[in-house]
């Protein structure tokens, strides 16, 4: 068992650079789905009628969202809608609300301008689906 664990660790350590290069979808610290968005990382947490978006830098350190603007295209329950994010009072996340249910099959495209003057970037989230 011990050897297997150390083997696993070694594999992980060796594979880490590769994984860092090729981010697959994964769970973030707030329980949402992590995705690359431009040169940043974004985490989207979906609840019924409510989206919460956290922004991180390339090394997964949290960033404040002051100055960032974002919209989201939400596809769920056979309906598409566009919602606009607003910063949470503590400046740690962007929130948006709309009429959708957090169920598997929910697709969200977040279009983010990290700061004024920066180019807009976008990412696709499947916030409720099981991560592959």
């Amino acid at each position, binding site marked *: 068992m011990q050897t297997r664990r150390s083997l696993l660790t070694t594999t992980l350590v060796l594979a880490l650079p590769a994984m860092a290069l090729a981010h697959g979808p994964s769970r973030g610290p707030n329980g949402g789905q992590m995705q690359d968005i431009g040169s940043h990382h974004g985490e989207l947490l979906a609840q019924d009628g409510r989206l919460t978006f956290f922004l991180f830098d390339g090394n997964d350190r949290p960033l404040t969202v002051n100055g960032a603007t974002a*919209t989201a*295209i939400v*596809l769920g329950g*056979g309906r*598409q809608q*566009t919602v606009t994010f607003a910063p949470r009072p503590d400046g740690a996340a962007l929130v948006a609300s709309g009429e959708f249910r957090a169920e598997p099959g929910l*697709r*969200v*495209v977040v*279009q983010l301008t990290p700061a004024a003057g920066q*180019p*807009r*970037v*976008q*990412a*696709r989230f*499947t916030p409720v689906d099981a991560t*592959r």
Partner: protein
Amino acid sequence: MPFRPALSQVPAVLRPVAVVLIAALLFGRPAAAHEGHDHGAAAEPVASALPRTESQSDLFELVAILQPGGALTVTLDRYADNSPVDGSVTLSLDGQEVAAERHGIGLFVARHPLLERPGRLDLVFTVTAGEEMDLLTATLEVPAPAATPGTAVDALAMLRGGAMQIGIGTGLLLLGLLLGRASVRRPLPPMVEGAPPARPVEAVPSDKRRAAALLLIALIAAGPAAAQQALVTGEAPRRLQDGAIFVPKPSQRLLGLRTLLTENGEASAALRMVGTLVPDPNASGRVQASQSGRLEPGDTGFPTLGQRVERGQVLAYVTPTYSAAERGSLIQNAAELDAQITILEARVRRLTSLRGTVAEREIQDAQAELAGARQRRTAIQPALSGREALVAPVSGIVSTVRGAVGQLVDSATTVVEIVDPSRLWVEALAFDRAVLERITGANATLPDGRVLDLVFMGRGLTVRQQAVPVNFRVDDPPPDAPIGISVLVTLRTARAVRGIVLPADAVVRSAEGPPVVFEHATAERFAPRQVRVQPLDGTRVVVTAGLEAGQRVVVQGAALIAQVR
């Protein structure tokens, strides 16, 4: 005539036009080619491809190609099997919704002014296909207008030797013809002496020539536009530097490429050997003559190929043939017997009329002698005039006929073979005797690819050519199964193999030798993967190394991809 530069022969009116044309031909191409290259070396996988982007989800795979005219062609396919998906696609460009026009199954075209503006463009596709809906994102780099001719020049390089070169050649030929015609000295009008008035002669032809020159200029100007039109469909599949193969979506549709999402499975190991399709020994038979003689047709004519015959049916007769000596002695015997019978008959008659005066025993003896002589005469009668009936030993179809009416056949010659096509066997030679103990199933592959299920019947104990003969019964053979043909017999054994089960067509021989499968790496990129395969049955193989679960592998059209150079 002293040498003069060709241009000086051109009439003065045309001279500037010709100079401009030649200059354009000489300097136009390098000038255009100078600018194109900063675009191609970027993120695009294929340097000379049209600007394109792709996106995929676990359901769909989408490729958007920006055509030279500013139209965005969108192809939509299933992610797993690469089959076109019918449905609808809506684009979101900078918050503006653009519905893509459906041009066929899984083919859409969208137009928007933003698509013609150079720069980075974030696209969101809303895909609806029946009950399934999905959002796909992509980023399209719209090249600067200055770069667009560059793209065309890159494409020209691709088309070099093709249509464009023919076009250039035709243009040059036309120019040459024009120059040649222009430089021909016109014959002077007859009956005119001295310097003719130049105006009336030149006025009409120069108009014609000017029109021709204008037409030529228009042709040359239209050249690049025509080439761009050709680009829309002119993207050819090709092998990339890293060995992967670029197959544009339109070509994938043409080739009918289909993929399979691999998953690990378990299959029983198989062993292959060569066998022969033979008739069931209990449902086939031969018709042979027992003595040499001449063939005569049966009651319903001579048997023909494919004819259905019933057991006991007379197919032909054999009339025995004798040598002159044999025939002579037979006739002599018959004559002697006939004479003897006549004498005996007379004696029986005489003795019977004297009944009472001669002994009853004498009468009986004479009668018995007569009966014996008659029997002997009857016995040699068939040898003189009789014939042997050839009877079908089994019911079935006439499969071979070796003989013709009137042909002389030896005894033991097979005249007709009869086979019941619904009862066939396969006889194979097994070189690995140990495997035969653990057979769980078998099938046979015909040369045309059809697969027949086999049932193990038995094996011989005597080796033949160092191999054990094994017999199988064909389960439900097709009516046109060719008897005697070689088949590939695949034995399934009890030993299990872990791996990825694929159709046999997915595996192709690479130019280097080892078997490869093509992984559908990205939407238009197919990467060859070397694999280790084992046969499973006639149509499937198991990949034991070289592939992992969750990869998309081409299962239909792999051989076509392998031919791309």
